């Protein structure tokens, strides 16, 4: 039966690929004739890196629309283009970084399967995104979902900007930057159900989840006409879209799939913490692109997001380590790594809306809250969120999203909002609605997908396969032969 399934999967994959080829002659003209001379208009002042551009420049649109009306197409700004190119590369690197981060925490016999859960996302999500995902997230649609106009990247120019998203960088660059986020998000979930899910089930699960959960939420929060965007919920770089969505589905998944064999009585220590620490380093490094690049331009907002990201990571590292030291007697390296990631998660929604002292506060609070979520809450409630996807991304993303409503200030970003501390208590409520909607949606739809996958393919490997390890049984390989 698995055998048959495998055949089907292969077939499906090939068909998908071939279908998408079918699309390309129709797209041969995607670099429109108007594109080539576009850059000669660069001296036009308008699209110069706007210093306070929100990730989606709704409010800025009028101002720029004028400039756009005159030439055939607005020109991309070279400096903005470089920054988002670099940021895209940095965000891509986070996925191998995540593979290391998670891979070091599992047992040796599952290290490759854990890596694969990240690496395969770089494959499957790329294909899905360019074929249909990007269009559904960012194509013209309604408040809930995008449209079909960008299917197969039709009309997504590598030269000229879109007139709504990233109006100073080529549209295709905006598309690929967003793709990097779409890749890492499902991979984040793999931490919760590590060491026990079938690879085939995982592959189907993240494919469907990406289209049915990630894509809609991305549209709500960042898409033209998305209801959370229009409501004024702030999410600079993906606190809800990336971290809450994955964190919540991850929680549902680890409860549905059940605990690891032998958990928690058997010894399940991380097999290689140096790997986890290297992963942390790469995540931290890549996160500058994740948050800093979300300014979509080489401007003060990028600097703000970069600096806030760094500060939150640093202070959250200290916060986790110091609390752990006081509570448990020893400061751990895994604690430092966990704190850093928690801080990075926490600052994600806020990075372009708060000042450095806000970042310091958000980092410290997220670090401490995640510490207790991971160390106390989990063991009390008894689920096996094996590598703490929920504890760090779900909780950290939620804390960060709410605190954004507390610390945000228009003195940093005129296209943002003022938060609680700046006299606008309502922003916390707005943030809460965004968070709650994401929680509910990700839990229900994520849960349904898992249910269907479980009933058809089966989520979990056989118990003896779990004993032998997923590397051997799912992939026919061993991580180390030393």
């Amino acid at each position, binding site marked *: 039966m698995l055998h048959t399934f495998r055949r089907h999967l292969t077939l499906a994959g090939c068909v998908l690929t071939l279908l998408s080829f079918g699309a390309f002659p129709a797209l041969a003209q995607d670099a429109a004739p108007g594109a080539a001379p576009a850059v000669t208009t660069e001296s036009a002042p308008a699209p110069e890196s706007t210093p306070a551009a929100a990730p989606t420049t709704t409010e800025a649109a009028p101002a720029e629309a004028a400039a756009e009306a005159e030439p055939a197409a607005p020109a991309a700004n070279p400096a903005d283009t470089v920054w988002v190119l670099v940021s895209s590369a940095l965000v891509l690197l986070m996925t191998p970084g995540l593979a290391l981060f998670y891979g070091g925490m599992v047992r040796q016999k599952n290290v490759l399967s854990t890596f694969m859960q990240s690496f395969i996302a770089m494959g499957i999500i790329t294909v899905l995104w360019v074929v249909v995902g990007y269009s559904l997230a960012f194509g013209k649609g309604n408040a809930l979902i995008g449209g079909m106009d960008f299917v197969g990247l039709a009309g997504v120019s590598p030269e000229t900007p879109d007139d709504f998203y990233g109006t100073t960088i080529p549209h295709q660059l905006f598309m690929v930057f967003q793709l990097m986020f779409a890749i890492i998000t499902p991979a984040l979930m793999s931490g919760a159900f590590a060491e026990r899910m079938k690879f085939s089930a995982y592959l189907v699960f993240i494919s469907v989840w990406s289209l049915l959960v990630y894509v809609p939420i991305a549209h709500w929060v960042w898409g033209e006409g998305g209801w959370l965007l229009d409501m004024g919920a702030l999410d600079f770089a993906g606190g809800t879209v990336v971290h809450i969505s994955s964190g919540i589905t991850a929680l549902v998944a680890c409860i549905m799939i059940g605990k690891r*064999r032998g958990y928690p009585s*058997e010894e399940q220590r991380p097999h290689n913490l140096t790997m986890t620490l290297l992963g942390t380093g790469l995540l931290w490094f890549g996160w500058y692109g994740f948050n800093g690049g979300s300014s979509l331009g080489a401007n003060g907002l990028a600097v703000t997001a970069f600096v806030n990201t760094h500060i939150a990571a640093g202070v959250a590292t200290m916060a986790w380590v110091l609390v752990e030291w006081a509570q448990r007697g020893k400061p751990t390296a895994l604690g430092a790594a966990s704190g850093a990631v928690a801080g990075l998660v926490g600052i994600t929604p806020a990075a372009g809306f708060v000042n450095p002292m806000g970042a310091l506060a958000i980092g410290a609070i997220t670090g401490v809250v995640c510490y207790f979520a991971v160390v106390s809450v989990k063991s009390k409630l008894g689920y096996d969120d094996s590598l703490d996807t929920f504890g760090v991304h779900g909780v950290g993303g939620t804390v960060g999203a709410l605190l954004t409503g507390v610390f945000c200030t228009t003195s940093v970003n005129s296209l943002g909002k003022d938060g609680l501390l700046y006299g606008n208590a309502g922003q916390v409520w707005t943030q809460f609605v965004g968070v709650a909607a994401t929680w509910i949606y990700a839990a229900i739809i994520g849960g349904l997908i898992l249910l269907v996958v479980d009933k058809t393919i089966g989520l979990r490997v056989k118990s003896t396969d779990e004993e*032998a390890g997923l590397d*051997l*049984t799912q992939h*026919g390989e*061993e991580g180390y032969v030393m």
Partner: protein
Amino acid sequence: MTKMEVIIRPEKLEELQHQLEEMGLTGMTVTEVRGAGRQAGYVERYRGLEYRVRLLPKVKVEVVVPDPMVEDVVKTIRNACLTGEVGDGKIFMWKLDDAVRIRTGDRGNEAL
């Protein structure tokens, strides 16, 4: 003094150590080994090259006990390590001529 060499599934080590401790046996030496036997192996493939891996990860526990305890220890080991599936492992045992505690120079049962 009898030396008991016990080959078990890696995941049973913690339980075995726990139960031996409850019997009052804290001394043991543990080695990571790989074992072949009736338990089926795996096929691995690296870029198409195929390897039949018949050696599976096992743990070897060595424990030296006074002769009268041997049968009790056998019972404890079976109790802790039994899953009933092929590959649960073996106990090999033989008498020692002597033992020395390096720290004190104690010999024989005293050294354990």
